[in-house]
């Protein structure tokens, strides 16, 4: 359900660009979504459909590029990908780790007319 809250923030940015650039229509929007945010594309699509009704963004195609979660161990300094939310270093087994990717919520680009 947080898809609606995030989509609303995205739409504000899109509307500003439409106004600033005097655009007619937005065809597609590319996002980079870190897995940590647990964005469900279908839910995000639905949120966008509701929010954009009657605007220049209506009917937009959303393109999602999901980024896996990677952590770095503060003790052994090795990096490993996080599966099933195991924020634990695969070498030493400790939790003294930092997330280095997978926390992105990036509005990358949009295709416009």
């Amino acid at each position, binding site marked *: 359900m*947080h898809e609606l809250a995030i989509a609303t923030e995205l739409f504000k940015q899109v509307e500003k660009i439409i106004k600033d650039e005097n655009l007619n229509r937005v065809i597609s929007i590319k996002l980079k979504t870190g897995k940590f945010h647990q964005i469900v594309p279908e839910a995000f699509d639905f949120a966008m459909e509701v929010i954009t009704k009657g605007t220049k963004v209506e009917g937009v195609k959303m393109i999602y590029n999901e980024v896996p979660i990677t952590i770095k161990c503060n003790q052994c300094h090795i990096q490993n990908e996080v599966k099933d939310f195991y924020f634990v270093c695969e070498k030493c087994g400790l939790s003294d780790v930092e997330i280095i990717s997978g926390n992105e*919520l*990036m509005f990358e680009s949009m295709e416009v007319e």
Partner: protein
Amino acid sequence: MEIKVLENILKVNDQIALEIRKELKKYNILALNMIGSAGSGKTTLLEQTIPRIKDKINMAVIEGDIETTRDAERIKKFGVEVIQINTKGACHLDAHLVQKAIKSFNLNKIQFIIIENVGNLVCPASFDLGEDFKVCVLSIPEGDDKPEKYPKIFRESKCVVLNKIDLLSHTNFNRENFYKDMKHINGKAEIFELSALKGDGVDKWCDWLLKQIKIKSGEPK
């Protein structure tokens, strides 16, 4: 035509959160963002916490709810400054709403702000409010599977309060599973078991809070 944007989707919120953080740093005020499901006992925990600490430090409370001023009225009775934010349908507080509330406080006179978020384990986890850290309140009847189901908030919280511990024997909550899951989701989190209704375990939580406030107030400005 393609337009490159390369912006954080939540950039407006995050910029304001940064402003809040800078402003609070000027006064060395500790701010806590309390997140938990509706009915997990966040306001009840505040009702136990405030009388235990309010003579030691000056504090203020921001109450977030979709509607009503009921929570703010519960807090007002303790004589601390409180502001109610009604989000009118939004399932989370955002930095803009919190900044407006903070502007109405006399920051020279307070050392601690508790922000009680809207009851929800999902959306509040995405919105930075400029706090020093998040506290997640989970209550026993919600079940031991919640950290695995909502890993973002349990991962990002510095501390987890396991509330309604007095109900443990009446539910199928498996404490061992809860700790096992917390270990891999957020092995560094402080965990406090308590009953906000009865007061058991609240002193230990308050001691920890006071320690955090002291650390923040002693930091260089």
